[in-house]
C-alpha cells in the first residue's frame, strides 16, 4: 500500500492554504514572508510528486525545477527581510496596517 498522487496533491493544497492564511490574516510583515515561503514549499512538493508519478521520468525535470525554485525562494527571503528591516527603520514598526502613506 503506497500513498497515491491524490494524497500528495491534497497535502500540498492544505499546506498552500495554511500559507495563504498566514499571509492574509496576520498583520506582521515577517508572518507574511513566512506564509509566502510556505506556499513556495507546497509548490515544490507538487513538482516532486508529479515528477515521481509521471510515466517515464527519464529526465529528472521536477528535481531540477525544485532546486531552482529553492534558490529563487532563498533570494526572495533575503530581499524581503531586508525590506522589513528598512521599513522598521523608517516607521519603528513592522505592522503592515501602519504603512499607509501611499493611501489616497
Amino acid at each position, binding site marked *: 500500500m503506497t500513498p497515491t498522487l491524490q494524497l500528495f496533491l491534497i497535502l500540498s493544497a492544505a499546506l498552500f492554504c495554511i500559507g495563504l492564511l498566514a499571509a492574509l490574516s496576520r498583520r506582521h510583515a515577517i508572518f507574511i514572508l513566512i506564509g509566502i515561503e510556505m506556499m513556495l514549499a507546497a509548490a515544490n512538493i507538487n513538482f516532486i510528486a508529479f515528477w515521481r508519478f509521471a510515466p517515464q*521520468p527519464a529526465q529528472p525535470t521536477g528535481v531540477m525545477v525544485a532546486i531552482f525554485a529553492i534558490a529563487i525562494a532563498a533570494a526572495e527571503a533575503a530581499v524581503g527581510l531586508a525590506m522589513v*528591516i528598512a521599513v522598521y527603520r523608517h516607521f519603528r514598526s513592522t505592522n503592515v496596517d501602519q504603512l499607509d502613506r501611499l493611501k489616497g
Partner: protein
Amino acid sequence: MSTVAFAAIAIFTLAAALAAATLPKLMHAALSFAVMFVGISGFFFLLGAEFVGLVQIFVYIGAVAVLIVFTILLTRDDVENVRSFQWGGAIVAIAVFAGLIWAIAKTKSLPLTPPQIEPVTVQRIGELLMTNYVWPLQCVGVLLTAALIGALILVMEEKS
C-alpha cells in the same frame, strides 16, 4: 513508500505549519516554521528526491530560518498586538482549499502507483546542471548576486 510514514510526516508537517501560521509569539512561529521544513524534506526523501530534501534542509533551516530569527531580534516590536488575527483571511484560505480539493477530486486520470525508477544521483544532477540546465544555472547565479547587492543597498544606513 509506505502509507504509515506518509501519514506520520503529513500530520507532523501540517501541525508545524498551523503552529507557524497561528502562534501569537513571532519567535515561536519562526521556530515552528523551521520544524515544518524538516517535515517537507521528509516528503522529498519519501518521494526519492534525496538531494532536494538535503538542499531544502541546508537552505531553509540553515539560512532562511536563521535570517528570520535575526530579523525578529533586530525589529523587536514591544507593543504586543492582541487583535492581530483577521478572519477574512481564514475564509479566503478555506475557499481556496475547497476549490483545490474540488479540482483534485474531479481529475480522473491521476496515476495511483509510482513507476520503478533508478535513483537520481548527485552526479546525474551535476551533469544535467552543466549540460541541459546551464543557462538557468547562470541566470540563478546572476539573480542571487543581484539579490545580495539589493539586500545590502536596502539595509544600508542613509547619510542625511
